[in-house]
């Protein structure tokens, strides 16, 4: 199952701004989110992603803008009146309550029997059936994370907000927990907004990723869109290694744009490309670059560039080439193992126009 293409707004942020002093922590962010989606807010620390989450939870009041959820305006509502719940980065488990007591904390209006049945269900959901009477401090990090998740899900929130939910876990556990988190989300159908600084985590979890930089939402879209068609250098660099080739836009030919670079003319996909004559940057992922020592027959309108292999690094599953181009710049290529080329050999690089994206410089 993938996210629906047409976004039916369920959670809707409109021109949301939060200013601390003179600093815009969140600046003019608008986004719509359908129900049942996992949206990851990705960005470096201090980019405003956590503040955005706290605005939705109600812990911060926006300086400007509004938040609507399922037809109701949440903007002025106190946190305890919002139908959203948050899983805190520190988990914020109540140390004086048992695991079951923590999960039951939000179930006040439910009646004793119903609440304890619900706690049982949630303990089963996060596979902690045996741990209801334990104190949080006796649990491992992974178990605490699951208690925090169960507690946040107890009130059946319309949107679950997760602040770096896997940040405190070690690497192996994190990957396993990513899978569990997705499974639980698919089963419940609750909309998740996940804040993370880890691009690979965002790629693994998200239906859509919203990339934030200095308070602004710079691009939002499916992981493959962001990876293949970054809107700017920041997004391109955040999601993985990328070659950036500067140049000038020559002419647009349908979806394809011809860019004049120091390495020669390059044809690339350019939906958001600047007008002819404007400076531009081409983003090219290393794994989309083909390299061969011999001159291949020019196939169709594939781009062809020439250089020398400077270093060749064997990584097991891949081989990494660093290629010195005629103008002195370098381009990195990542080839399947077995396609190795020795250092110092002249090499011809080729890539399809669709593999490269033209962005504003």
């Amino acid at each position: 199952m993938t996210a629906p293409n047409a976004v039916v707004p369920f959670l809707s942020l409109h021109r949301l701004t939060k200013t601390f002093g003179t600093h815009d922590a969140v600046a003019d962010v608008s986004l719509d989110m359908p129900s049942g989606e996992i949206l990851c807010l990705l960005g470096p620390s201090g980019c405003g992603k956590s503040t955005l989450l706290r605005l939705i939870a109600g812990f911060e009041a926006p300086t400007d803008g509004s938040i609507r959820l399922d037809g109701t305006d949440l903007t002025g509502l106190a946190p305890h009146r919002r139908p959203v719940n948050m899983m805190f980065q520190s988990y914020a488990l109540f140390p004086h309550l048992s695991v079951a007591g923590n999960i039951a904390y939000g179930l006040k209006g439910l009646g004793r029997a119903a609440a304890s049945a619900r706690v049982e269900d949630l303990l089963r959901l996060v596979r902690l059936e045996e741990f209801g009477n334990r104190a949080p401090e006796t649990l491992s990090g992974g178990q605490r994370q699951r208690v925090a998740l169960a507690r946040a899900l107890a009130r059946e929130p319309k949107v679950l907000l997760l602040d770096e939910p896997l940040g405190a876990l070690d690497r192996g556990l994190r990957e396993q927990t990513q899978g569990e988190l997705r499974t639980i989300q698919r089963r419940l159908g609750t909309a998740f907004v996940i804040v993370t600084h880890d691009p690979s985590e965002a790629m693994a979890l998200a239906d859509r990723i919203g990339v934030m930089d200095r308070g602004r939402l710079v691009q939002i879209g499916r992981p493959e869109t962001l990876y293949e068609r970054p809107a700017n250098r920041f997004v391109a660099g955040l999601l993985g290694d990328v070659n950036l080739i500067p140049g000038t836009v020559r002419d647009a030919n349908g979806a394809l744009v011809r860019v004049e670079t120091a390495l020669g003319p390059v044809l690339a996909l350019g939906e958001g490309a600047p007008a002819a004559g404007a400076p531009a940057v081409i983003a090219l992922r290393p794994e989309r670059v083909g390299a061969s020592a011999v001159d291949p027959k020019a196939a169709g309108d594939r781009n062809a560039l020439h250089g020398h292999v400077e270093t060749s690094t064997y990584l097991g599953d891949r081989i990494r080439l660093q290629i010195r181009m005629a103008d002195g710049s370098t381009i990195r290529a990542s080839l399947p193992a077995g396609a190795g080329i020795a250092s110092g050999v002249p090499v011809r690089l080729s890539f399809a126009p669709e593999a490269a994206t033209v962005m504003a410089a």
Partner: protein
Amino acid sequence: MKRLLPVAPYLWLAAFVLLPCLITLKISLSSPATAQPPYLPVLDWSAGIDGWGAFLEALDFANFETLAGDSLYRDAALSSLLYAATATAILVILGTPVAHALARSPARLQPLLVALVIVPFWTSFLIRIYAWIAILKPEGLLNAGLLWTGLVARPLDILNTPAAVMIGLTYAYLPFMVLPLYAVLSRLDPALTEAAADLGASPARAFWTVTLPLARPGIAAGALLCFIPMVGEFIIPDLLGGSGTLMLGRVLWSEFFSNRDWPLASAVAVLLLVLIVGPIVLFRDAERERGGVGR
């Protein structure tokens, strides 16, 4: 020197805590005498073992019999406990919101606000209690204010009543309640109260069910820190409570200085010690029991 270091704290305690207690206990088991020192028996070191024997034989429990038999001492002890317990309860109720507000105030302001709580200590305790006389007396500041606003027609008699003692105790010990509570509350993760709010708890419920239970160690520490010295308090009941106020500290003082009955005064001191040790032991056991649950 190195070998001495681990036992140094015990030596210190023995010299400055245990030894004075033992001396007090010894005097409390002696009889008053018109002599220097004003009690008998006195241990005769030159007589060796025999001296010890004679000394131990001469000790008696007459002073404690007096304490038990004379209702003055029983009433003083009970009223001291009552004053201290009531004042402690008032201090918890007053100190918790103050400490909570302190812990929630902007981080930049907190050092200043904490300093303001401590500022009164820069002035002599005695002088500050004297100042309360000026406030509470019939023609004092408080009554002048009340008369001026028209709330009362005649000056209230506050000075030399139990109410004045309670006001004095509450005033003097508030910092001892606020500071340990503040220390605990300021270390609480703010995410805990946010989590409570997030889970639907109103600010009041979040306070009762999360902040207050987690502040318990601070409340307990503050309560002990206030209760113990208040039981033996002398200056406040003497200056503000007038002659009618019955508290052990005053009884002790008058036995010691007015009646010059050192043995009976020492017996009162021992009684005071027992009264105070009781709550500490109870408190420790209760805390240990709590700590055992879910751990």
